[in-house]
């Protein structure tokens, strides 16, 4: 027998810059985002609430307040963390003033990454939070993954969104890893090449990586599908493989020049013919022999 639930939201700011809070208010007040269709009520008292919405990286000053509110909540309840700060403490991670992220204090159900998230993502996160609450009320286990509830995730073309990687263009130069302010990118050497990882739940959507990438390999997708369950927190990762090539002359492994770089160097040529499997050392030697006999 399914119980009908009236979702009552209570918002806690745990040291947020206010970006997520403003975006949350915009989501609540603008009809377009269809939060009303969920029958949501915003409540003033924590003991009335059954959905806790958390923003901010959880500063040392706000930690006791969050603990106090969590202790006052009546079970069952769902927790929705809004913004990258709430999910992983984002750019403030490792600061002396940060005790976060939120899931250290309370069992989070839905994480909404973004800095700040788009209203569509917030609406999606709240909708998924309500779904989790419904399942908890029915005595069911919290789902490991949830399908998208609001299907429309379009954003203006200028909006950045999640990061993606074109493996063919990437040379694993580590520029993006170096300029990322929130530790969302990791490039690790493995046998046969490199693995390039972008962890969306740590990304602050600043676009530095795409801006500084010398080959245009890393880019924004304009996708704001960032509302995910807690089980997906550490698996919401974009993984790219950048493989070495084997030189057809000497047999050594080498990192091939990316098409992006070749395209910049040989503006008027078809770069596909330049990408023969030959390492720079052999290419240099062959050119030397050709010119000086």
């Amino acid at each position, binding site marked *: 027998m399914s119980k009908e639930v009236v979702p009552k939201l209570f918002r806690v700011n745990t040291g947020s810059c206010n970006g997520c809070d403003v975006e949350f208010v915009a989501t609540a007040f603008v009809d377009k985002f269809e939060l009303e269709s969920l029958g949501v009520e915003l409540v003033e008292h924590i003991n009335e609430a059954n959905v806790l919405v958390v923003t901010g990286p959880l500063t040392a000053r706000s930690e006791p307040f969050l603990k106090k509110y969590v202790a006052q909540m009546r079970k069952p309840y769902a927790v929705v963390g809004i913004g990258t700060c709430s999910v992983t403490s984002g750019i403030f991670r490792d600061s002396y003033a940060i005790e976060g992220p939120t899931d250290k204090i309370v069992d989070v159900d839905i994480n909404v990454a973004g800095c700040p998230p788009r209203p569509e993502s917030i609406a999606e996160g709240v909708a998924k939070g309500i779904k989790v609450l419904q399942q908890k009320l029915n005595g069911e286990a919290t789902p490991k993954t949830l399908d998208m509830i609001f299907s429309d995730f379009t954003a203006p073309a200028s909006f950045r969104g999640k990061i993606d990687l074109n493996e063919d263009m990437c040379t694993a130069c580590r520029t993006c890893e170096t300029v990322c302010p929130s530790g969302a990118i990791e490039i690790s050497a493995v046998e046969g090449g490199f693995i390039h990882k972008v962890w969306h739940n740590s990304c602050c959507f600043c676009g530095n990586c795409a801006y500084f990438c010398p080959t245009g390999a890393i880019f924004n997708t304009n996708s704001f599908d960032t509302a995910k369950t807690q089980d997906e927190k550490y*698996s919401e990762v974009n993984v790219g493989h950048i493989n070495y090539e084997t030189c057809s002359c000497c047999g050594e492994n080498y990192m091939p020049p990316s098409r992006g770089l070749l395209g910049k160097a040989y503006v008027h040529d078809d770069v596909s013919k330049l990408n023969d499997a030959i390492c720079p050392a052999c290419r240099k030697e062959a050119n030397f022999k050709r010119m000086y006999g």
Partner: protein
Amino acid sequence: MNIEEFNNAIKNNIVSQYTLHDDVDSYGNPNSWIKLTNKNDIEAIAKSVSAYKGRCVVMSVYRNEDGSHMLIYHFDIDGMLINVEVPLASDDKNFISITPILPSANWAEREAREMYNLEPVGHPCKDRLFLDPSMPKGEMAEYISLSKAQVGLSDTDILWNKVNEGIK
């Protein structure tokens, strides 16, 4: 009001040697640096600033390699900026608070107390300014390289280890 007039006002009240360097910034604003040799002379300067109806804009603090600290008070008198360097010895953590004379120095001195664990003696307020009471004073005494601070490098790989587990 000019720096010569201010210098005449302070020179009879300062007991130790000091130097005054008069300068003008690129916009033509007067910008003077006073370097004290005795930290207690800051009180006389604060009294003069107060007499001229000036204010303490903000304070800068930095830590030298030998562990000593330098306090720099930035005063403003009718648009003229006066920067006063107050040296503290390496084992000295106390300086005279000028807040009783210039209330505008209240927050700046409390910030120096929290971030560098220096004590403004005679400061009327003992409360924390912004650091949570759970944190020790002197957070800025910890050495963090600029390159690390700029790119937000983590001390640990705990989260990335979890990510690498999560994507297996």
